[in-house]
């Protein structure tokens, strides 16, 4: 059910839109109420908290070719004159510049997607505690387990001259981190699971708990990889990391506006091997970034970015689309109501191929299966890669040798990596538990994933 408070402010939003229309050519009001509950059960601590909750509004106006915004906590008693006075600049330091005004179609709709599992805090805490206790029984070197459950309930309203929208959607993440210690050697391994249903997210955590611990223990003996070029197979999390960091950021079209993305010059050209298809969109699958309309009030899309190796299009928010003369793709997102909209990825993933995972492993003479996203950083202008896998498993003559390297940094030139993809597995997994910044800020929830990919890459 839509947040009661936002519902109570719907008429205030309509009033503000009407009042401000006397002074501006375009006006919209976005209301956002996010409730996030976090339950932590670790070896040493237990907590049940509200975290990152927010509730507030953004008023967006347009006049004389330029947009302005006002972010505030409440609009009940907010007067149009206050908005005008606060956002008015006495001096506009800028070269002449004009953006087209948003053109909207009539759209009135309410959307709803809720977590079907009505679990109590105690039930959730007990599930997490069972996982924690079972792992401690299994391994003496385990010095800390953190089992975490986070449920985010998002309600938004969007009101403009032609639109009146509301949406409520839930998403659940569970996460397990195991820290093991042998003398001065400390290693940790984690995994997280994003689901629309609390029960499924908790089940996955329980099912994978021992595997997560086993990897942490194996990491105690892991060595750094010998720098060089190798054949790699990426697991779905690393495939997703490459889709997101190496390529996805470069097709965010606010980067096209700023001429900050090399991809702008590659639309219609090969950027990857013919085996590669790539998608992004809040409606492309059900995952962490599956909403019904974006923070510009644009309905969710499913955009095919790469088709058989050829770059088709980028993704955009409204402002970028207005500047580029394109159609917005429902990718306008804010970190929260205090922040500006940017073009942001949502659920970003490589499409499936026709190869079997087992055949891919058998085909490797010497290389690594790279697993578990650690981190990554984009470079859309120069397409340099930095993606880090938590660990890699050595493959020789088509078989795993039992040797582990950790961590593993993949570097090089994006197009070289994508063009070297020679096998693509036939099953796709999208992992809905990530967060993404733009540059070094503006964090939003995202999902990414794909099949297993076989490629050539520089590791270090």
């Amino acid at each position, binding site marked *: 059910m839509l947040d009661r408070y936002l519902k109570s402010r719907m008429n205030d939003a309509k009033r503000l839109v009407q009042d401000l229309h006397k002074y501006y050519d375009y006006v919209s009001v976005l209301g956002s109420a996010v409730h996030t509950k976090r339950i932590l059960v670790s070896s040493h601590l237990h907590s*049940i908290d509200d975290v990152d909750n927010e509730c507030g509004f953004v008023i967006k106006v347009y006049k004389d070719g330029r947009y302005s915004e006002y972010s505030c906590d409440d609009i009940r008693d907010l007067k149009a004159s206050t908005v005008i006075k606060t956002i008015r*600049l006495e001096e506009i330091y800028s070269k002449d510049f004009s953006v087209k005004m948003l053109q909207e179609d009539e759209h009135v709709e309410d959307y709803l997607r809720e977590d079907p599992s009505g679990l109590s805090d105690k039930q959730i805490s007990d599930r997490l505690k069972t996982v924690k206790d079972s792992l401690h029984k299994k391994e003496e070197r385990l010095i800390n387990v953190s089992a975490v459950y986070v449920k985010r309930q998002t309600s938004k309203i969007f009101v403009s001259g032609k639109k009146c929208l509301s949406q409520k959607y839930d998403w659940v993440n569970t996460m397990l981190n195991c820290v093991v210690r042998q003398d001065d050697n*400390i290693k940790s391994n984690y995994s997280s699971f994003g689901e629309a249903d609390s029960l499924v997210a908790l089940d996955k955590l329980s099912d994978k708990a021992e595997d997560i611990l086993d990897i942490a223990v194996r990491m105690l003996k892991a060595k750094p990889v010998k720098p060089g070029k190798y054949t790699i197979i990426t697991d779905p999390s690393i495939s997703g990391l490459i889709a997101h960091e190496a390529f996805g950021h470069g097709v965010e079209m606010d980067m096209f506006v700023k001429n900050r993305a090399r991809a702008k010059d590659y639309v219609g050209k090969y950027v990857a091997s013919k085996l590669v298809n790539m998608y992004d969109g809040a409606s492309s699958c059900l995952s962490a970034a599956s909403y019904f309309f974006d923070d510009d009030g644009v309905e969710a899309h499913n955009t095919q970015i790469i088709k058989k190796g050829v770059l088709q299009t980028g993704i955009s928010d409204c402002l970028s689309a207005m500047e580029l003369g394109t159609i917005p793709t429902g990718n306008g997102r804010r970190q929260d109501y205090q922040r500006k909209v940017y073009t942001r990825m949502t659920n970003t993933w490589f499409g499936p191929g026709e190869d079997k995972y087992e055949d891919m492993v058998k085909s490797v003479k010497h290389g690594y299966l790279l697993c578990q996203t650690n981190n990554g950083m984009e470079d859309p202008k120069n397409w340099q890669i930095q993606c880090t896998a938590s660990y890699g498993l050595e493959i020789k003559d088509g078989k795993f040798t039992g040797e582990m390297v950790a961590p593993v940094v993949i570097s090089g030139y994006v197009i070289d990596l994508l063009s070297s993809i020679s096998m693509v597995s036939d099953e796709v997994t999208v992992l809905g538990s990530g967060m993404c910044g733009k540059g070094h800020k503006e964090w939003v929830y995202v999902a990414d994933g794909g099949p297993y990919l076989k490629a050539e890459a520089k590791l270090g």
Partner: protein
Amino acid sequence: MMKKSEILACLKACDRIDGYEVSLIDKDSRELFYVLDHMEINRAVKVRKVTVKVYVNGKDSVGSSNVIVTAADDEKTLSKKLLNAAKSAKAAQNPYFPLSEKGKDIRNVNKKKRDLNKIATKVAKAVFKADTHSDGWINSTEIFVSEYKEEFLNSNGVDHVNESFRIEVEVIPTWRNGKEEYELYRYIRTDKEDYKKITEEVEAILDKAKARSKALTLKDVKLPEDIDILVKEDMLEYLVENFADDLNYRSAFLKSQHYKKGDLISNTPFDLTMRPVVSGCSASSRFDSHGTVLSPVKLIKAGKANGTFGDIQFGYYNKEKKISGDLKVAQLDAEGVDYKKRPHLIIEYFSAPQLESDSGYWGGEVRLARYFDGKKYIPLTGFSISGNIFEDIKDVRFSRKQTVSTRYKGPEYMIFKGLKIA
């Protein structure tokens, strides 16, 4: 939004809780967003964030739970939230620790009236004053000028106020070399209206973008083995934080610390001191998130682990006699060396500096470095460096030149040997 007095009245009326902490942060901000030298959008932000933490005691334990108070709350909804939080706190019990006791309240109040829109425009002028090149330009600029008022209160009568002012500028310069364009990234944070310095910093990052456009790769240049590698800025802050985190009460409690008092960290006799306030460090604060008034701690003395610091919860668990509070700013003191006489490699810019505190792995992809071959500096790009900080710190050296950043004051460079270059 509920007033402070109304929130406190709800807390006092809730008989299920044994203690509370309240944090109120008011933010008033003006923001300008530029594409090239065109202002695309301007924004104003006037918001308040209120977080209440309630505590419920057990026999030898205590539980806590956070409540975020939003504009949607009134006396009725907040009272209900507090009851739910009390229930959560009762269920999630941890070893007991006390709340901060009332001592001298902090009153850091700034009476200066500022016109934030005007300051933002002045900052924009300062940024674009550096935009004077034909082959290089500022592609994207975001300017944030903000005033913050932070208040902290707890059920023991602690009542602190801290007001602060901040200018933040994100600048992305581009430099053209033939048909290719190269960009870099810079985030400037300052609490001073020093427009000249902003122009200088933008000029410096444009110079770096120019260097990146001319940078060679390791295919073109053979580096001497065992070359001195100098790291700075974000990476240097990460490395310092790593040792600070290791000597935090929390790490000792979780048994994840690598060092205990007296352990040799480095053969280089440097000192590392955590301080509440260091001039020029915008993370400076006189109190922490539990309201504890911060006091300095010498964590590392002459290269050996010397002290620990942290918040009241983990300090109490570890039976610390004097609890320092959770300090955020580090000052490093060391004798500097003259690195300029020998060939060396200065890492100007990592794409994303990495450091794993458990294993000590650190490094990253280098977007721009400067290699001094004994005669001249050669810009380099497209390689990565890596090492293990627990080993590499043993023979670290430092530059004589000093720097001040968000959370660090000390030598501008840390100098390492034996890092892997790939």
